[in-house]
């Protein structure tokens, strides 16, 4: 089993199969981030493809001191944010519209889920209602399991900013999720 860094080196030396290993290793993480940011499975596929292609093209600029997946997620994050911004001009003006765009059929009901499928859908709805940069930081922290310092590197922000933003994002997410639930109970 080669390390990511070894696979990158081998790819740069012209061994094509090495990059294939990296794709197999990380497409799940990249795709999941893209799907949770963009909601539409086709968009998520697009961004995943593009992220790997860009990584491949600029592989010689990758700094092996950092984990490969973090570099890949940085590329993917930027692509997602770009796309969200573009889409915002076209649609997503109404929060109700966003809920209809949930990828309900595409997410797997995890066995270990602490929330039922219905609640998970609502949590996703709450997540999607957040500003894109809040969504991204939540996903980088919890979906991808990155440390504050790693997120700071990806977002090119100080660790303090990451902590503050993460705190706000989490609070907003929690409020929206639980308020929605309460609202439904009352109405």
């Amino acid at each position: 089993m080669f390390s990511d860094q070894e696979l990158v080196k081998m790819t740069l030396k012209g061994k094509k199969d090495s990059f294939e290993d990296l794709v197999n290793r990380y497409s799940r993480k990249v795709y999941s981030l893209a799907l949770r940011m963009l909601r539409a499975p086709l968009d998520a596929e697009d961004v995943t493809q593009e992220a790997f292609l860009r990584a491949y093209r600029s592989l010689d600029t990758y700094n092996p001191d950092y984990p490969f997946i973090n570099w890949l997620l940085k590329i993917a994050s930027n692509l997602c944010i770009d796309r969200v911004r573009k889409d915002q001009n076209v649609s997503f003006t109404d929060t109700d519209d966003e809920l209809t765009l949930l990828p309900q059929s595409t997410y797997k009901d995890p066995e270990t889920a602490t929330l039922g499928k219905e609640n998970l859908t609502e949590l996703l709805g709450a997540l999607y209602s957040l500003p894109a940069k809040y969504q991204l930081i939540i996903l980088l922290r919890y979906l991808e399991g990155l440390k504050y310092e790693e997120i700071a590197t990806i977002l090119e922000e100080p660790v303090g900013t990451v902590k503050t933003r993460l705190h706000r994002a989490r609070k907003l997410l929690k409020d929206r999720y639980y308020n929605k639930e309460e609202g439904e109970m009352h109405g």
Partner: protein
Amino acid sequence: MVDCESIRSKLDEYVDGTLPPLEYREVKAHLIQCDSCNKEAEELFLITESIENMLVDPPELLNKRILAKIAQDNKWRKRRYQRLVKWTAATILIAGIVYFLPRQIPVDTTGGNVAIHSRGKNVIIDGNTLHGDLTVVGGDVYVEGEIKGNVTSIDGQVSAMVDGEGFWEKCLTVIKEIWRGFTGGDSI
């Protein structure tokens, strides 16, 4: 007794598992006694753990599609590279031709002696015959025709077009030679 507010400010890092051990124990001890902070922490745990479980498997063929796209990109890049080499070669050639091209100054061959200040340009005496002397200041002289008198070039050189090969034929031979070197046998 620690107050709820200071505990709340540490809940994020408590949930994230990044609190130092001492503070971690402090928060944990508070949560056992305080229902409202405990509820807050549980909500946070529930949300963050749920998001952790939102990883999804990509569509089955996605990896193959990614690799196909990269392979395509490779081919395209190779072709683009080859095109780039050809265009570069062509550009260098044209620049070379323009640079070495004797910028011709018309010489009136009907009179007797001719003196020209060529201002850096080269002077070509083509097929005609010049009956008198030719004096050129500041440029090379290519003699393709016939000069009965003396040829003098001040600050320049005098070259004769020998072997009946004209200037353009010579250029073309050189161009073909360079092109072969660049493209490895391709013709223009």
